């Protein structure tokens, strides 16, 4: 058995009587790409929010590399190496692309707080070079000086991915990385994510698009109605009748 990096243990979460998540038990192994799929309202985003500390589970634990994430602040979870990329791009619209990527790198290097008010930000040559490299890798190299808010939606999502990758996370959580993208952009993103996969980074992807899921995932967890109904390799999941009933059926008629 490979090492488990993220272990979601017996998590329950309900909102005003509605069981958003129940009996969730999930292990993500080191280096794998784990997809979480399920129809709308299945609890995918809630599960991700529990993992990054945005929501607190009613019971159960989320263990990352031996550390209990439950009750930790978002910045503490990030400092442990868990990075999330949001569905709607969360960037710094008023800052330049370069600054957008330098901030996460500095956060990783200097920790959650460091009062350095006398040094020049632009004198951080090493950090700047690193940021430029990541931006170039993601095809944003020509735009480093422009304001992030002026980017197209697709570029904003790529920028956010760059901000996440710049931190060299140990676990990357992606929330529908291709939602709202044209097919061409989707394929570019898949290629990019495959490249990262080759680098051995552990990833959890929430995704609607079956094409994306089956091109990338090593293992898949299927959620429906807040419960895990099936877990396994893409082939196993494809063959499972319960999955067809709950999810694939409606899309692949």
């Amino acid at each position, binding site marked *: 058995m490979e090492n488990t990096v993220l272990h979601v243990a017996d998590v329950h979460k309900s909102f005003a009587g509605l069981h958003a998540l129940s009996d969730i038990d999930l292990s993500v192994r080191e280096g794998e790409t784990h997809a979480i799929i399920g129809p709308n309202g299945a609890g995918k985003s809630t599960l991700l929010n529990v993992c990054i500390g945005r929501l607190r589970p009613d019971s159960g634990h989320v263990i990352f590399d031996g550390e209990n994430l439950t009750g930790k602040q978002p*910045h503490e979870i990030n400092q442990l190496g868990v990075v999330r990329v949001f569905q709607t791009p969360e960037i*710094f619209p008023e800052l330049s692309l370069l600054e957008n990527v330098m901030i*996460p790198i500095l956060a990783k290097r200097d920790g959650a707080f460091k009062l*350095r*008010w006398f040094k020049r*930000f632009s004198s951080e040559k090493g950090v700047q070079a690193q940021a430029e490299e990541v931006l170039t890798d993601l095809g944003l190299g020509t735009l480093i000086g422009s*304001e992030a808010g002026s980017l197209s939606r697709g570029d904003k999502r790529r920028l956010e991915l760059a901000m996440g990758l710049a931190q060299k996370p140990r676990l990357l959580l992606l929330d529908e990385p291709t939602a709202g993208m044209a097919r061409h952009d989707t394929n570019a993103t898949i290629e990019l994510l495959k490249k990262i996969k080759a680098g051995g980074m552990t990833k959890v992807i929430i995704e609607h698009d079956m094409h994306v899921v089956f091109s990338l995932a090593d293992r898949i967890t299927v959620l429906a109605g807040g419960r895990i109904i099936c877990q396994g390799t893409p082939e196993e999941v494809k063959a499972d009748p319960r999955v067809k009933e709950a999810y694939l059926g409606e899309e692949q008629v």
Partner: protein
Amino acid sequence: MNKLSAVSDWILFAGFSIAVLSMPVWLAPFGADYPDLMQRFAIFGLFAIGFNILFGLTGYLSFGHAAFLGIGSYAAVWSFKLLTMNVLPAIMLSVVVAGVFAFAVGYISLRRSGIYFSILTLAFAQMSYNLAYSVLTPITNGETGLQLTLSDARVIDGIAGIEVTRTLPFTNLFGLKMSGMPGFYFCAVVLIIGFFISIRIFRSPFGTMLKGIKSNQTRMAYTGLNTRPYLLWAFIISGMYAGLAGALMAVTDPLAGAERMQWTASGEVVLMTILGGVGTLVGPFLGAAFIKYFENIFSAYNSTNLNQVFDFLPDGIQAVAVDVAGLFVGSGWHLTLGLLFMVTVIFLPGGIMEGVRRLGLLVTGKSKKNKAPAAGSSSTANEHS
């Protein structure tokens, strides 16, 4: 690119320093070259520059910064009373006391953001104001205000063997009297130092983090940054600037009253910053100077002046004109300020600095258009000056 922006910062700093120190020369044609008014330009400029570090960089709007101004004044006067009439210990004490107080207020107020933060700071300032008037009379001397007396201890001056005079002693910098022009130059030098520190903060990693908080605070947390201490330090630093400004008020005129802490004073620094240009380096100083200059002009008018101004009108109309104009001058000058502020915010949301930028574009517009296609898109990094 980076070297260039470092150079342009030094040019900005040098230009600012020269402009401030030469105020007695170039303000003469405007009739504003007397020390009392120029001291006010420097003091309120410093207050607004410090306020801008919080409001301009983080977007957190404090409505209680006058409390730190008042506390700075009280601390300075106490230093004059107990320690020495030398101004250096006084301003140091003020900055420290204001910083400690800002830590306490900021620690609590920063638990909330947006309008709730503003209201919490306002509540703290009004609380301080009312306490200074009532319960804290032994420290603040209540309504009369804290003043120097002949019987003050002045321990350090006593040790240093400075003779006790029969009249009230003067504030001084190692013997140099801190009123009139020397007082102005002292305030100007402190302002220039404050401006320099403000540039460093704007350009530092710390300043960039503050801009990130203003831009997207949620993102900051998910990027692994603890926003609370960043905000708290910005709050403390701007509180220290306010304390320093309060100390300079006491340096140029050694008394301190509770009215300095009133909410109108807190509101004034907000107006100054917005009028000059939020988040710009020189804007807040320009806003402060602008308001203090027009306050000085308009509030000096009275009905006699107005009668002279409208002398050319027939008697009946003259009386009406004087009555109407009278609403806008003297103690009614705030009406004029309100109108000026509305006009600025509606037509120049970026304040005076935006006006300057637009003028600059008008002047250099042609040459820029020619260069634009060749320059490419990489040189458009956002420079705030």
